[in-house]
């Protein structure tokens, strides 16, 4: 065997929490709070995001419970029930969008994985990275404080300062002139969170441009990096529009400058244009990184080269670009001109094409593979099925005449939950499982992982599929009470939500169990060939002793399975990249 492949670091690393791991490099609480290490920042993000997810998830179950009966379920007084419900759905939506899904994959997994995938020591600007984390924390605290006090105040009839009941969309003029809500502090929170997002985006763009190792051309980058790159571009270009919009909202609410409220001389539809100019691309901030994670998971766990690398990479960029020109499809009933509606409808369908391409490429990657039925792959398959349903139901909504009756009903609720939760969050959970051994250096319980993944999949479909039918039958969204004929749909959905909740708690238990009792993980448990699998689990502080050179990230032929460590070992041969 040749020993000339000295560019590849030692492969048979000690498999436990090696004394050289970044966990042990420094100790004490301050070593976390002021760390510049992207790995620690990633883990801190992960904790914040999972805590927010638990909060948003808890209130999702409360919402579903309230909807068990057409009238008030928790409350005696119907007026309290409305208030309580409106504050809860605002909390659920705002927390899940701003604190969970938008930062989930980029800020938590991306922070940890991206520099290692680049063979780098850290992101391009480590201090900026820490700043974006603290902006996230400050924004989140603002936000959660306002949202929680509204829910608690209306639940127990306590006289607290007002919460927020505008929905996460802050539609004017309700938000600026009517709502007895703490709109200003909430908007400030979202504003700060936006900066966190922008700074992370800038950091990732700079890292990908500057830190790629020798041999990693643009078309030899792992697809997750393509996806994160596309995401970062959207974050940098779209989020400032949100910031401006929120400032205008602020100016109208606080200084009574007429921008959106016609009573002050403004235009309420203008707000919707501004808002969706950010918030539609934000949908792709949520789904693109998920597609990147799935590209990694499907290829690695099928042990086969990704199919149609370039089409997937290009489709990420295409989605990022098309995502900017479709915002008007949120406003088909707002009274905007039929011509505008037709143009936005046409453009909307263009996004369907790169999305479809990706699905077919993932399927072809599995063809003739050696598919491993482990937990990450379960989430990979869940993602494909749920994303196909989420994407296909988008066809109903893109078609103008069909959109009109479905707009603002439970059909929309179901559709975006299939995309946001069924796809983006499934990819997030799958990604956490996929990189769990790398991040924490421990294995999780595979059987428990698979059972919980199946429970989550069943619970998810049980909860949300019926909502498509409730919606097309006419059930409007954001309704605290509803007419009797929709009760069966709601009861089915609520039952499913509990199953989904149980599944997610099982996932959490599995992770905690792994942290406490998990077996040590090998450096490369799956046989992946992207650079993070070339360093130890967990990685040392510096990630790599020496800058690695890379070949094809999806060529697995040099990795041989070693039963004794339950992981893969590199055969030491140089990876000669094929010409593209």
């Amino acid at each position, binding site marked *: 065997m040749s020993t000339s492949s000295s560019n590849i670091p030692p492969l048979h690393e000690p498999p436990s929490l090696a004394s050289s791991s970044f966990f042990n490099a420094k100790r004490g609480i301050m070593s976390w709070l002021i760390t510049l290490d992207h790995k620690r920042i990633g883990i801190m993000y992960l904790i914040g995001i999972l805590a927010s997810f638990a909060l948003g998830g808890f209130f999702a179950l409360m919402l579903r419970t309230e909807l068990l009966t057409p009238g008030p379920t928790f409350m005696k*007084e*119907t*007026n309290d029930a*409305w208030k309580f419900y*409106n504050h809860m759905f605002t909390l659920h939506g705002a927390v899940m969008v701003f604190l969970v899904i938008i930062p989930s994959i980029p800020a938590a997994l991306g922070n940890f994985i991206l520099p290692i995938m680049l063979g780098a020591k850290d992101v391009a600007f480590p201090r900026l990275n820490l700043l974006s984390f603290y902006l996230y924390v400050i924004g989140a605290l603002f936000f959660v404080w306002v949202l929680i006090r509204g829910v608690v105040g209306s639940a127990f009839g306590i006289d607290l300062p007002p919460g927020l009941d505008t929905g996460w969309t802050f539609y004017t*003029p*309700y938000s600026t*002139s*009517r709502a007895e809500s703490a709109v200003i502090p909430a908007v400030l929170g979202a504003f700060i969170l936006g900066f966190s997002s922008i700074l992370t985006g800038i950091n990732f763009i700079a890292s990908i441009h500057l830190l790629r190792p020798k041999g990693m051309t643009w078309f030899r980058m792992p697809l997750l990096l393509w996806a994160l790159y596309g995401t970062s571009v959207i974050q940098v270009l779209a989020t400032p529009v949100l910031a401006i919009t929120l400032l205008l909202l602020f100016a109208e609410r606080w200084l009574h400058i007429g921008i959106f409220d*016609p009573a002050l001389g403004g235009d*309420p*539809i203008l707000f919707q244009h501004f808002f969706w100019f950010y918030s539609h691309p934000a949908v792709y901030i949520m789904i693109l990184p998920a597609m990147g994670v799935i590209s990694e998971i499907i290829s690695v766990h099928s*042990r*086969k*080269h990704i*199919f*149609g*690398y370039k*089409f997937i990479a290009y489709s990420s960029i295409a989605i990022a670009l098309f995502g900017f020109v479709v915002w008007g499809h949120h406003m088909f*009933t*707002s*009274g905007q001109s*039929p011509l505008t509606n037709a143009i936005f*409808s*046409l453009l909307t*369908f*263009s996004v369907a*094409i790169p999305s*479809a*391409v990706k699905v077919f*490429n993932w*399927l*072809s990657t*599995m063809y*003739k*593979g050696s*598919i491993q039925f482990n937990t990450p792959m379960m989430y990979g398959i869940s993602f494909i*099925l749920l994303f*196909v349903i989420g994407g296909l139901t988008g*066809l*109903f909504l893109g*078609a103008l*005449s*069909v959109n*009109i009756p479905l*707009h*603002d009903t439970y059909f929309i609720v179901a559709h975006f939950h299939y995309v946001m939760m069924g796809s983006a969050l499934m990819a997030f959970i799958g990604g956490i499982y996929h990189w769990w051994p790398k991040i924490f250096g421990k294995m999780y319980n595979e059987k428990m992982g698979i059972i919980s993944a199946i429970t989550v999949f069943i619970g998810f479909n049980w909860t949300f599929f019926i909502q498509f*039918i409730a919606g097309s*039958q*006419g059930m*409007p*969204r*954001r*309704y*605290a009470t509803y*007419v009797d004929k929709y009760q069966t749909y709601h009861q089915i959905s609520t039952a499913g939500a509990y199953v989904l909740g149980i599944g997610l708690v099982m996932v959490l238990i599995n992770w905690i169990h792994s942290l406490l009792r998990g077996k040590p993980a090998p450096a490369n448990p799956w*046989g992946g060939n992207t650079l993070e699998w070339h360093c130890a689990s967990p990685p040392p502080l510096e990630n790599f002793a020496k800058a690695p050179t890379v070949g094809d990230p999806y060529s*697995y*032929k040099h990795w041989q*399975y070693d039963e004794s460590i339950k992981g893969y070992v590199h055969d030491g041969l140089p990876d000669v990249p094929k010409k593209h």
Partner: protein
Amino acid sequence: MIHVLANANASLWMPEQASTVAPDIDQIFYFILWLCVVFFVGIAIVLAIFAWKFHGKPGQPAQKAPAHSTALEMTWTVIPTIVVMVIFYMGFRGYLDLTTPPPNAYEIRVTASMWSWQFTYPNGHSDSVLHIPANRPVRLILESKDVIHSLYVPAFRVKKDCVPGRFTYMWFEATLQGEFDLFCTEYCGAQHSMMITKVVAQEPEAFAKWLEDAANVLAKLPELNDDPEVVKQYAEIGSKIYNMRCSACHSTTGTIVNAPSFKGLFGSTRSFSNAPDQVADEEYLRESILIPGAKVAKGFGNVMPAFAGQLKDKEITAMIEYLKTLK
């Protein structure tokens, strides 16, 4: 006599088709649905076959297979492109029908406010329920007094936002007679989910008669006397006025929304921030409707609009008779 024909031609996915555009929209809906079923089942079957045929143990390498195929990838780029363009065209064509009212449409003005609907007919009559002639195009001119609302009739497959500061339009032609749900579908605050009413579609003759009776109800109403039938008539009219004008802020259940509840109001002793306490009698109620700022209930702001000049004497009397029934 209104005959409810609910579920006459409802299906699993769609409610009854009660307008001229409904069958066309449903046809496109079901076309897309079947297309989705074909794609989804196809993908799921392929996934299942791959999962079954190609599952491997750890360490087992994959079989040889090409890493890309331009011809194949072009195929599955072009086919979805054609499919979505077809769907776009179908949706667009249907939408043109949905936005183009026939010239002879009957016009009704809609004023949405937090949280009630007011429908005003060409003869000046206003109602909180939308009565329409069946089998005749109806065009609605929508506006909002405060925030954005959205008028949605599932059975007609139509929806349009009511935007403050501008007019929007929608039209439909009911093909069934009966009562249909009308929802607000743009979140508009605390009682958004209570902002629901009915559409009543009748034969044009029956509709015309209803409209005439409704408009003349005050003229035909005798002066208030002790006859319980007459008192009841007044209270009923008062209840309709309440639904259109008062229900946004005053509840009838004892709950405080933005203003004191009407429950048990009549005959009770009221406290004010700008006047001595007083029993709520007819004269007090009359004054409070016409000049609300004269006596402002303690704990509440002086925010109620004055109704002087907006309500006729008989309507005020009707309102008071209605308040008397809320014990």
